[in-house]
């Protein structure tokens, strides 16, 4: 399921939607969380619409996350701070932001980036979800803003088409993976299957990898480059000449005289005092 790939320890998840599904964005993300057992009490969402005009709406969300967590943590304030920080990552809230288009309608890009960064750093938040549809971004610098969100995100899910999606994941250790999946979507489920020959980390999704080009030759080709099992066994059993020299044995010359040879078994140098 897609939720297995998206609802992970990565904190900031960006969904880039090329399919114009923006109207169901909150429901989409909510369903992913629900599939992974994240209850409604762990989900906080910013209201959409006119309320996004007011900065107080954003501050209220952060305050609500902090207050709710403090109320739920009984006797934890006196405990170790170090012990509480990994626990807050697992017990923090999942924040579903309005779509980037709705945010840009009321706030500046700088404010949005700042807010996203605050959520990313907040101990009371375990995941932040942001949905972006390029065909809805009403800003002359939409490409730059989208790139900025990709920079902040630890997981970038790109819904490329009805059948294909790609997932870029940045691990805390610095490793990056870029995988493509085929998908089967219905109203209630989203199944994904990894595509064979997935892209290595850092490779552009549009450049075919060398491994994916080595596809099995079609049945109509007469050029056979693959080996059967018998041929593989025979190849592995073959000892090459340079390998025989490594065998621990003394060197000697084995001479078989011909019929015309006058082979004398006496040593011709016997009379020499060497």
């Amino acid at each position, binding site marked *: 399921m897609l939720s297995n790939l998206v609802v992970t320890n990565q904190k900031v998840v960006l969904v880039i939607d090329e399919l*114009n599904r923006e109207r169901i964005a909150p429901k*989409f993300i909510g*369903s992913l969380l629900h599939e992974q057992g994240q209850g409604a009490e762990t989900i906080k969402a910013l209201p959409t619409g*006119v309320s996004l005009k007011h900065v107080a709406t954003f501050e209220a969300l952060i305050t609500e996350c902090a207050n709710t967590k403090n109320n739920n943590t009984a006797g934890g304030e006196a405990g170790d701070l170090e012990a509480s920080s990994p626990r807050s990552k697992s017990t923090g809230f999942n924040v579903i932001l309005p779509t980037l288009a709705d945010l840009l309608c009321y706030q500046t890009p700088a404010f949005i980036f700042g807010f996203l960064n605050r959520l990313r750093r907040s101990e009371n938040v375990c995941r932040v979800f942001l949905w972006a549809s390029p*065909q809805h971004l009403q800003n002359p610098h939409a490409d730059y803003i989208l790139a900025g969100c990709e920079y902040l995100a630890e997981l970038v899910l790109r819904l490329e088409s009805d059948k294909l999606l790609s997932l870029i994941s940045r691990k805390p250790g610095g490793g990056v993976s870029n995988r493509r999946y085929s998908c089967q979507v219905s109203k*209630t489920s989203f199944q994904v299957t990894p595509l064979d020959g997935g892209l290595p980390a850092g490779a552009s999704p549009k450049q075919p990898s060398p491994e994916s080009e080595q596809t099995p030759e079609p049945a109509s080709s007469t050029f056979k480059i693959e080996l059967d099992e018998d041929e593989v066994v025979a190849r592995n059993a073959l000892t090459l000449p340079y390998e025989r020299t490594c065998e621990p044995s003394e060197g000697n010359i084995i001479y078989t005289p011909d019929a015309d040879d006058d082979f004398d078994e006496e040593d011709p140098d016997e009379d020499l005092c060497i």
Partner: protein
Amino acid sequence: MATSVLLACGLNEQKLPGFVHISEESNVDGSFLISCILGQRLRISNAGTLLVCLQHHYQHYFNAGMRLGYNTNIFQGKTLGVIDVLSDMAGEGLASKWLRNTEGQTLTEQLVEDIRAQVESNYASRNSYTVLIDNLSILFNLGASKLQVQQFCQDLAALAKERENLTVITKLSNSDIYQLTDNNVAKLGQVRIQVLRLKSGVFREVDGKLLIERVLDEGNYACEETRKEVLYKVNDRNVKIFAPGEIGVKV
């Protein structure tokens, strides 16, 4: 006369979806849709209508209505309310409130305030209420920015959600030029009607094409949508609808 158009668009019912958007491509005129919808809403008993005239003044809608078989003057002041921005500007000139930032409010904020005031005074006494906005692109000409127009439509969509039986119908012309604004407004509603020109040229029997997209059900991961395409011809006193392929070239 307009029944076939509304039937094709799925707008002939008494209860309409909360938000409907009409996207009009360049070089086509979809004004007939506003006149058809207006006529249908006026004919429903105790249904309130608010017409926001931005592209034409009220007299134009009266004339169009007479051709389609209804008289808007009978309903004005009763079930029909009108916000005639153009006539106000023509009558008051630069002193018109639409051309001044009254109390620091922008044009779109003033318009939302007027619409809300009209809805609040008339909605309670009506079975249903329809707000018709013709035409959003005129707001650009009056100095509104794209973000302001988007906020304006968000406010209207919020208004439609607040009240049951309230429908907001917006129209945006030159939607191919204002593609982003058109997309952002269209996503607010369940029905989108695109008025498109014929791609292959001009035809005497057909003026253009209507593409009607309707969201039937919003699932968790995908929406169930229907798409329907019809051809239309606007005549002097009626509008004819054809299925694609019905009209052919006679040799």
